[in-house]
């Protein structure tokens, strides 16, 4: 690992200042992706700004009809949260399925989404549940937040502070994990709220995406049979040693049906 300057601000405002002042600064949240990346020298930032000491970024609130999760809240806290378990059990399940217990004790929701790993679980939750990302300067709808492979709408010096989830009537997440890493080969979040259905897919493509054809079919008839005949094109999907694009396309359809079945 190359060396860097280390900063440990205690407020979001100070963190933004440190980031603005750095030549090539990076935010350190849980570090579950960033530290391995630094070890491999795939990144060599001049400064690391650690969010670990900013108390305002941690915690879960149920207010204004939304569940709001602070950006530095670790996955284990989401998985164990009584309110998340009661109001959006699919989100608690999703958090519980990330990595292993030690990763869940350190990794955070803000870090996960800001990284926009194609195989991360949280992007499917944000897009599927129609969440809103709060940053130090604005609110961004999840649909507009994830832009591509490791790419988001965040500006260079912008910090995610929280994510707000509306309460769905029903939501389920079905994931086919890579047996070694537990990253999603394919993960599908299906959620119904106010008569509309959203279907968000992670793991299959370069970035989380929705399936409008399935959403429409499920809005009329919320059952696995409604989407049985919908073919998923393999065009543009990921192909690697773990699975071909065609295999992933097939998995999308299977995981979507499983998620709908679990909702019933």
């Amino acid at each position, binding site marked *: 690992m190359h060396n860097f300057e*280390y900063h440990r601000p205690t407020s979001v405002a100070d963190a933004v200042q440190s980031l603005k002042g750095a030549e090539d600064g990076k935010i350190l949240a849980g570090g579950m992706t960033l530290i*391995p990346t630094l070890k491999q020298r795939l990144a060599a930032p001049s400064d690391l700004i650690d969010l670990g000491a900013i108390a305002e970024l941690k915690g879960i609130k149920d207010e204004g009809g939304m569940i709001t999760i602070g950006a530095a809240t670790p996955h284990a806290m989401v998985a164990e949260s009584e309110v998340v378990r009661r109001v959006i059990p699919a989100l608690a399940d999703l958090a519980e399925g990330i990595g*292993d217990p030690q990763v869940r004790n*350190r990794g955070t929701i803000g870090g996960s989404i800001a990284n926009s790993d194609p195989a991360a679980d949280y992007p499917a939750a944000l897009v599927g549940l129609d969440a809103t990302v709060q940053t130090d300067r604005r609110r961004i709808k999840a649909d507009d937040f994830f832009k591509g492979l490791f790419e988001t709408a965040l500006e260079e010096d912008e910090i995610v502070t929280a994510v707000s989830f509306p309460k769905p009537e029903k939501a389920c997440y079905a994931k086919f994990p890579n047996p070694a890493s*537990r990253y999603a080969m394919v993960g599908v979040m299906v959620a119904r709220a106010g008569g509309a259905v959203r279907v968000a897919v992670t793991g299959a493509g370069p970035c989380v995406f929705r399936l409008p054809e399935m959403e429409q079919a499920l809005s009329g008839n919320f059952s696995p049979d409604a989407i049985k005949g919908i073919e998923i094109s393999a065009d543009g999907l990921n192909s690697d040693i773990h699975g071909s694009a065609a295999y992933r396309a097939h998995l999308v359809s299977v995981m979507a049906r499983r998620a709908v079945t679990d909702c019933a």
Partner: protein
Amino acid sequence: MPTVSMTVNGKAASGDAEPRTLLVHFLRETLGLTGTHVGCDTSQCGACVVHVDGKSVKSCTMLAVQANGAEVTTIEGLANGELHPMQAAFREHHGLQCGFCTPGMVMSAIDLVRHNATPSESDIREWLEGNICRCTGYHNIVKAIQAGAQAMKG
């Protein structure tokens, strides 16, 4: 070079550490606590598991500076005159072969018992997702953890 201070196994400990120093290297090389092992160095094997502020973490994937001011417990901090009940259960049930993964297994197991005082076999196997035993001695590790959990109640 920044000075890093933390409470390790109940005692104040400090030392100089470059920001890039991993917690595991600080523990092993600066503090001389070599019970915490580095197996893979890629956050997968769990040989380096320690507790930071009461939670199990992989110390190869945390910077020493991130643990500044924290309470850290390593395998050396468990025995108190006699072996911790979880360590004793690993010995009793032959929960180790070469022993390399054992410190991480024991630290991870104790965190499990804090969440779940009576874990089933499947609870244990699921919890050990992040701990790899290359001797593949999982069968007795699981038995040891179940017995250790029982002993920790008493």
